[in-house]
């Protein structure tokens, strides 16, 4: 498992694959205040990224991986502003 869920935060790590999206989506919907931690994430399947983009949750830490951060930071922080 590459996502660790707590009551307040979902921590994504390594390569988050598409099979984990169902669980992620479920957690996001049941935890409206939940935040996202991407620090240890190396890659995020587009379906997972879409889930995050859709629910617009604050990101506590951006990925250490610069390649991933390049894509997720603009995609997710933009929406943070909306909130």
């Amino acid at each position, binding site marked *: 498992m590459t996502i660790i869920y707590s009551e307040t935060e979902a921590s994504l790590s390594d390569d988050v694959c*598409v099979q984990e*999206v169902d669980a992620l*989506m479920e957690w*996001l*919907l049941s935890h409206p205040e939940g935040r996202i931690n991407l620090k240890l994430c190396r*890659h*995020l*399947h*587009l*379906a*997972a*990224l*879409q*889930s995050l*983009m*859709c*629910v617009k949750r604050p990101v506590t830490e951006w990925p250490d991986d610069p*390649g*991933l951060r*390049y*894509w997720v930071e*603009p*995609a997710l922080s933009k*929406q943070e502003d909306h909130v």
Partner: protein
Amino acid sequence: MNPLLKQFVSESRDLIQSISESLLLLEKNANTRDTLNELFRLIHTLKGNTGLFDFPDMTHVLHAAEDIMAERRDVEAPWEQTLTDLILEVMDYLSEFCNQLEITDGNPVSDTVMAHQLAGQLRGFSLSAQPPASVSDKPKKKPAARKSRKKTDRPEEPAESSTTASFTESELIRAWFCSGNESLLHLVYTPASDCFFQGEDPLYSVRQLPGFVAGSLSFQGDGAAAEGFDPFQCQTRFSLLTQASETEIREHFRYVPEQIELTPLAEELFPVLRGDIQASAVSEETADDLCKAAEQNDSSKLMALTDATLELLNPDLKVAAALRWLKAATDASDTVRQQRCLQELRDLLQLPQWTFAEPAAPVAAASKSDSSRNLRLELARDDEDALQQILTTQKRLLEKDTRDVWSAGRIASAVNVIRNALIAMQKDDDLRRLDSAMEQALQVQPAALAAELDVLTVAADVSPENTVSATATPATVASTADNAQISDDAGDDTDDEESDDEEINDHAMADDTVPVVQHVQKAADITPAKTSAELNDNLTASVQSGSSRSVKVDQEKIDRLMNLIGEMVVAKNALPYLARRAEEEHGLRDLGRDIKEQFAVINRIAEEMQDSIMQIRMMPFSFITMRFPRLVRDISRRLNKNVQLMIEGEDTEADKNIIESLAEPLIHILRNSLDHGIEAPEVRRKAGKPAAGTLTIKASQEADRVLIEIHDDGKGIDPEVIKQKALEKGLIDDAAFQRLTNREAINLVLIPGFSTASEVSDLSGRGVGMDAVRCAVEKVNGSMALDSEAGKGTRIRISLPMSIAVTRVMIVESDNQLLGIPMDQVLETVRVPATDIHTVKSIQTTVLRERIVPLRSLNNLLAIDASQRMNEDNECAVLVVRVGIDVIGLIVDNFRGSADIIQKPMTGVLNGLRAYSGAALIGDGSVLMILNLKEIL
């Protein structure tokens, strides 16, 4: 042979066999569509496998076959018998190729001419007159997206090009400069909404994009209610800038070509200036200063000026943007772009265009093309060096004694090497001269070629101007390798030459080309980087851990297992002896019982184990029958007979040895039937039979025996003819001639020395006849019988044990020796009082169950000079056995019970002892010889 090649050969043979079978099935019109599919699949697989190696001939032929089969599979068309013939011929060719592979350890000498002939013939069967249009690749995406964006004159307030709008200024600046003068591509990638269900991850794909400069994504699911959101519906689109070539990008997205749109980013689009317009943001003076600095190529001044101006400006102004682009251009020392930015700036400030003075002429581009020219020359020189070396080597080869038998080949090979080298270097003129020199050399003057080489050597020295596009091609190198081989062979001719040749080869080894040569020789390996040992390990491991349900195991390994279990059975049999000793000699009754109990357990396990191992050795009858359809087809066509072959019970199993030993006899029987049994169609019609004869082979299992029945509806065997012939050959006497029943007469053909064929054909009847078949069958403890009805046909029945691994024998004692007699020959054991033995016509006999049984003393039969012992009651131990149709009483000293043994054939000098069929170990560790009663009686 490396494991992969081994696997390849073995699988190819299987495939070839299956292909032959399918072809024959096709001729029978059986399941035509399925069969065509299957046939295509098999040929396709075989061809696919050859692609792993460098066997161009094999691939070539199979490619043609595959094309034809693909066509037949897709288009309804009558199947020609000649096509079957041709494909069978191709299979023969491939079989031979596989044999060659095995013999030469992967370096087959292939008949290229034959391969091309076969391929050509195959193509002749193509349904369309022209070669079938190869399924054309998807038409290239129409370049509609590549609208020309060249703008000659700009509108007053140009809207920003949509291609650049999604990128930030810094990304665009980066893109502009990182691309240098190369074209920059804008890529819009719109993944299909269901792409996740095709295993795609567009984000990952984008992150792997070659030449990535900048990118952004837009998410269309924005604002949708989170509850109803389907994350598995792709709603993201990517806009990307890349400096990779269009080919690279199309290659990267080759699986989804319809989802990308590529637009070259024209230089004219830059600089992209965003922001508010404010005409007087910068003074004309400052603008002029900037232009002057640029003109003087004074970067530091230009930089300082730009920075100072920017500090005073609102960054949201277009003018500020222009200055930032200028700064970037200055940073990159790109004077052309500097000027572009400056002109843009003046435009914005509504100042007249600045006329830049000459010195700032673009030099960068010129210098670049200069250096690439140099590079080319350098490359050319490298090649020339290589050519020099090749020429020198070949020349030295040619300087050898030209009178020997190899000289013609040597000249040809030298020319070959040089030709390839010249082709690679595109020296067409030299090539022509070379050819004529070779002609000359071959005819009269070997020196002509050497002279030509000298010319070439010199020419190469002084002409490095030739354009060269490639270093030595693999073709050149491969042929160099070939030639090294040839010269090696030549060297074996005489000793003194050998050392010479070695020297030359050494020289060749020092060549630049050598690493590639080795590479070519290793073509069968997958990655030369790994040592072959490692590779082998890998391959072997992969075979062993293969998840397939069946495993191919070396015969040897199973045999070893078989021997081991045999020994185990023997060793285990020692336990009852042990138990008895414990009880009788040491009086340990409890221990004896315990040993016996333990023995029962081990016995059960050993038996099960033996059974399982025996199962491994079991093979289906189809193993031999699968070649029959082809055989029958070929023979019957040669004889102009029409024969239908029916095989039943192909999945009947028997021990591998038995199945294998059956192959030859069965083929013999088939040939006999085809040759002598089944009549020509016109004869059959006259006899009121269907024109096509039927040959049936039926295998079935009955208890622990396998029954095989071969039946033909041919002319049968005429018992009178047989009897007559047997009489002529002195095989029977007059009395027998009168007495023999028809059935007995027919079985005379099984007697050694009998062959019915009145003339010897190349198919059967070489005088070995059916007795050879009988011998082969009896060797594996089988029996056979023949019955036939003149005009109706012949039926041959063969009965074989299912397994030869374990034989039950009767152990008897004679002259203090233990001997075994196969249980299936033993009818009964009796004690005959000496008084009941009568001598009739000098033969000892006795009457058993009202039947006179001849008696033979075993000692006598084995030429042992001792009389048989009798028991206290003066009774002889008589083992009644059946040998063929005779029942004989064998007088022995004593009976010792029966035992299961694993009979091993006699080897070495013992093999000549025909009185014994084999030997076995028994429980106490001693050797038991098994008598071959047929031989001694």
